[in-house]
């Protein structure tokens, strides 16, 4: 018994070292960036004014004069003068504060010994991502222990896999994105479910149910879009598009509903298997009834999870539309049509997983019974 706490202490020390090292690195990694970085030393508010736009929205505009010190590149150590404008609402501007690090561009200066001047490009945000990431990992480990570690591993693995799949797609644009995503989806499902639940029949049933349901729901969505000619879907509003948008949309939808479908599939198979393990001679009819009850319980909350995860992101854009006097119906259809389609298609995936999961699990249970 005494060995376990020691082992734990080692783990904690290693974890603490990792955190300290990574935080130190990100605080001092300026030299690795190609873009010039400057640390804000002094901020002075030049003036402020109240503005009213043509839609009667009131806001405040501020102008700041900033002195910053360059921390990388050839001009390292030199001071740079910057100006910054920001508004109270900060939709596309930021209030600069002392101590922040900024990406700046240096303007050519004629007098060689005078201070530099330049423009602010963006804010350095990497340490905030790192901080939130560590807090997330720590809480996950604290609450979930081993299972927490497994979910971190599975998340990291899935992120790398997704990035790799996209690289493959960009290098071979002749292969359909859907095909690449299908391969990725199979890998996602197998690794995530195996990592979370281990090698057993429960997991195999869930994997088969997940794959069948995901592909079926994709097929349904594809048919709907094809039948309706995509009417009501504002593909032109799909942001950040460099590729055929319909494919990108379908692929995103495909991957997006996968997590929820996996969740439903594993819930169905574990609850049915636990019933079977409690009573090996439980009749198939009873399993079906209980399975449907479980399905009914999780259906509503799962569809709502997807709904909020997709719709919430559109709120800032909707506010901007409405504040600019766009009619509500127009703003909603412009900004929500694709998100709604995603949420609904994901919901269809979730609901069809329930019967599919039920019958695959019963098949596996029957097979196990026959072998006894």
């Amino acid at each position, binding site marked *: 018994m005494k060995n376990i706490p020691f082992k734990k202490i080692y783990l904690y020390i290693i974890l603490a070292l990792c955190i300290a090292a990574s935080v130190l690195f990100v605080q001092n990694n300026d030299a690795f960036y190609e873009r010039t970085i400057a640390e804000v030393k002094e901020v002075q508010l030049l003036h402020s004014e109240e503005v009213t736009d043509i839609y009667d929205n009131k806001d405040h505009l501020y102008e700041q004069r900033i002195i910053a010190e360059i921390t990388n590149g050839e001009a390292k150590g030199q001071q740079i003068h910057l100006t910054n404008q920001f*508004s109270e609402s900060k939709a596309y501007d930021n209030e600069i504060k002392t101590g922040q690090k900024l990406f700046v561009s240096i303007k050519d200066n004629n007098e060689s010994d005078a201070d530099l001047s330049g423009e602010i490009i*963006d804010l350095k945000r990497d340490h905030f991502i790192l901080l939130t990431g560590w807090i997330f990992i720590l809480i996950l480990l604290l609450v979930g222990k081993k299972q927490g570690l497994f979910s971190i591993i599975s998340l990291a693995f899935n992120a790398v896999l997704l990035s790799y799949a996209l690289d493959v797609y960009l290098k071979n644009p002749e292969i359909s994105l859907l095909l690449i995503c299908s391969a990725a989806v199979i890998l996602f499902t197998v690794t995530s479910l195996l990592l979370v639940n281990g090698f057993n029949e429960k997991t195999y049933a869930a994997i088969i149910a997940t794959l069948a349901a995901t592909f079926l729901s994709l097929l349904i969505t594809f048919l709907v879009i094809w039948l*309706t000619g995509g009417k009501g879907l504002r593909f032109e509003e799909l942001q950040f598009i460099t590729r055929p948008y319909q494919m990108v949309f379908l692929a*995103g939808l495909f991957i997006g509903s996968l*997590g929820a479908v996996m969740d439903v599939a*594993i819930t169905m198979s574990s609850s049915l298997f636990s019933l079977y393990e409690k009573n090996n001679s439980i009749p198939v009819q009873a399993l079906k009834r209980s399975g449907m009850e479980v399905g*009914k319980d999780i259906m509503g909350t799962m569809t709502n999870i997807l709904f909020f995860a*997709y719709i919430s*992101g559109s709120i800032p854009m909707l506010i901007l539309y409405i504040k600019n006097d766009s009619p509500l119906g127009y703003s909603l259809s412009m900004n929500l049509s694709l998100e709604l389609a995603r949420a609904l298609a994901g919901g269809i995936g979730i609901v069809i997983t329930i019967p599919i999961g039920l019958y695959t699990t019963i098949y596996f249970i029957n097979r196990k019974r026959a072998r006894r």
Partner: protein
Amino acid sequence: MNAILLLAAILFILMTLVGGKKGARSFFAIFLNFGVIIFVLFFMNDPNINPIIVTLIACAFIGCINLFFINEVNIKTITAFLSSLITTGVLIGFIVIIAEKAMIQGFGEEEIEELSIFSLYIGVDFVKVAASVIIMSTISAITDAAMAISSPMREIHYHHPDISRKELFQAGISIGKDILGTSTNTLFFAFFGAYLALLIWFKDLSYSAGEIINSKIFSGEMITIFCAGIGVTMVIPVTSWITALYLVKRGNTADTAE
């Protein structure tokens, strides 16, 4: 025919086929939640109202819809509701600080071109809106996790009425560990799917790793994913604690379980 209407019709038919009355109620809950979002939108448009407070009230409503309307008012849903609200309250404090420090509010330079026709000086505090968005995208997952823990805890207490508070809490945590992997996965894939276009965009325009990590949109998405994960993880001990406290206390005063 409109694609969205057709998808909605298919979803409704499937939900009633599989879930019967409860399925229809679950479908209707989506509409109620949509209504809550529209209300949130209206209140957020008023610069004099704090978006954070609007969000907290909206979360209470969403919790009511997801727990009391889809299920019913009972011990399981009440403890789940309380736990979700407490978790949301703590989480939003953290998110506001991060959103303000990391300045992930509003729109990124990638989006700004298409917004050139709009006036951006609209007086709405986008930092607080950004924090609200993160909370809103996680709230449903939080109530789901809370319900998934409080419901089996109630069963355990029902079958072992003499269980101590500490044991019941431990049982809750161990249920939580089992759902942790899948509920974080649900959110991650939902976000991955939603950001797929963005990822292709970054790769297509060959952004460097440094540019991607520090860009407003990507860091905003990453922080959303992490905060969502923190939310669904934090709700596990909170729900276990509250449910254990509530069930054991109630068990001592009134021994009869319904």
